[in-house]
């Protein structure tokens, strides 16, 4: 898996570098809120307000760009006491602190619509996500760190400022990971999150 990640990052840098010298590009920095859905909403149901992303888009035509994104979100939730069937004939009653960090790196095509004062876009990112999952009970720590493949369709709106190469943006994306985590007898599969983001981007010609 580490080799795949290394190759992926190498290819990402290579593509960005080769395109960078040619055409318009913009980079974005923003605040990301993420909400777990699916199995993982049972692990942590609270939204993550602790997150951000740095992304870049390099245009290959007037409307099509290749984009990349580095993201980060940390999730946490204190769970009230509950009974967990942790094995055959084994049960545990405890309150837990569940914690999770996502650090995705994705790359993919984006399509941009130029409507003047607003620039909608759609994109699909594919890549890898480094996921930390942790369950604390008293001084007991159950955890799993893993690299997972991630698919990230995204739509957004950019609002260019006048007279400066800056724009504000809002976006919403859906992250689907191919992973699993097993803790206290519960199995969580395929982490899915809805991500909302706002931020600033600056254009480089």
């Amino acid at each position, binding site marked *: 898996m580490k080799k795949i990640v290394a190759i992926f990052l190498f290819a990402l840098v290579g593509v960005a570098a080769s395109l960078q010298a040619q055409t318009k590009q913009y980079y974005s*920095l*923003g*605040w990301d809120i993420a909400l777990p859905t699916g199995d993982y909403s049972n692990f942590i149901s609270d939204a993550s307000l*602790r*997150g*951000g992303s740095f992304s870049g888009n390099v245009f290959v035509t007037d409307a099509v760009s290749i984009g990349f994104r580095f993201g*980060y*979100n*940390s999730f*946490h939730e*204190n769970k009230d*006491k509950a*009974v967990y069937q942790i*094995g*055959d*004939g*084994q*049960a*545990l*009653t*405890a*309150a*837990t*602190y569940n*914690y999770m960090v996502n650090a995705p790196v994705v790359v993919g095509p984006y399509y941009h619509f130029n409507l003047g004062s607003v620039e909608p876009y759609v994109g699909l990112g594919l890549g890898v996500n480094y996921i930390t999952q942790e369950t*604390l*009970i*008293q*001084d*007991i720590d159950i955890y799993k760190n893993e690299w997972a493949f991630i698919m990230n369709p995204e739509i957004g709106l950019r609002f260019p*400022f006048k007279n*400066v190469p*800056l724009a504000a943006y809002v976006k919403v994306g859906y992250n689907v990971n191919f992973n699993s985590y097993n803790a206290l007898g519960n199995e969580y599969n395929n982490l899915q999150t809805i991500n909302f983001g706002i*931020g*600033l981007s600056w254009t480089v010609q």
Partner: protein
Amino acid sequence: MNKKVKIGLLSAMFSGLFFTACETYPGYDDYVDEQLISASSYDTKYNFSKSNNQVSLSDTVTYINDTGNSGTEIVTRDSHVNPKNPYTTIIYNAVKSNLETAGFSVVEYGQASYGATPLAASTTLIKSDVEVISYYPWWWYDWGWCTWDWWSCGYIPYVPYPYPYVVGAYDVGVMNVDIFNVAGTNKLKPQAVWSGIVRGLYDGTHTQQEVGDALKQCFDQTAVFPLK
């Protein structure tokens, strides 16, 4: 406010968000550390109906305490007399009550069938600042417990089945209630068919009611209890 100021403020905001996002265990509730947890385990292959729902309950609550330089000390009983320590009495009564609620007919010390029932139950308290305690039901008949250490029990040349309990004790304190199958087996090697553990006794402040509830929960969460 001009654009430079706006951009500066936004940059500062994003920087702040970035750094706060990196905090380890944000919003961690100390209760997670200080709570009592209840764990239970039963042997799914054991047929509890074989016991005729009878269990002999040890009149002793074994107390294992780390006494520093002297190693692990086992505070046992006064040779099968009724418990005199008020806490021992409270614990004994709580265990007895829960066993009865779980459907057992409890045979106490002094009764004719004491020690002759298919099942026998015993309670152990561990208070220690060591990380792990191993202990072994060495002479169940004598209701003595022995830490699996050469200095307290003498050298044990082999580890017979069942293997010693290993309980991560730290400084949190553990109450352990075990029910052993002692029918037709070598009494030096009893098989635990049920264990209940309350963990966290000495971490934080807990009322007697809370400890009692945690012990009760060990029985309540066991699928085969109450016995039919």
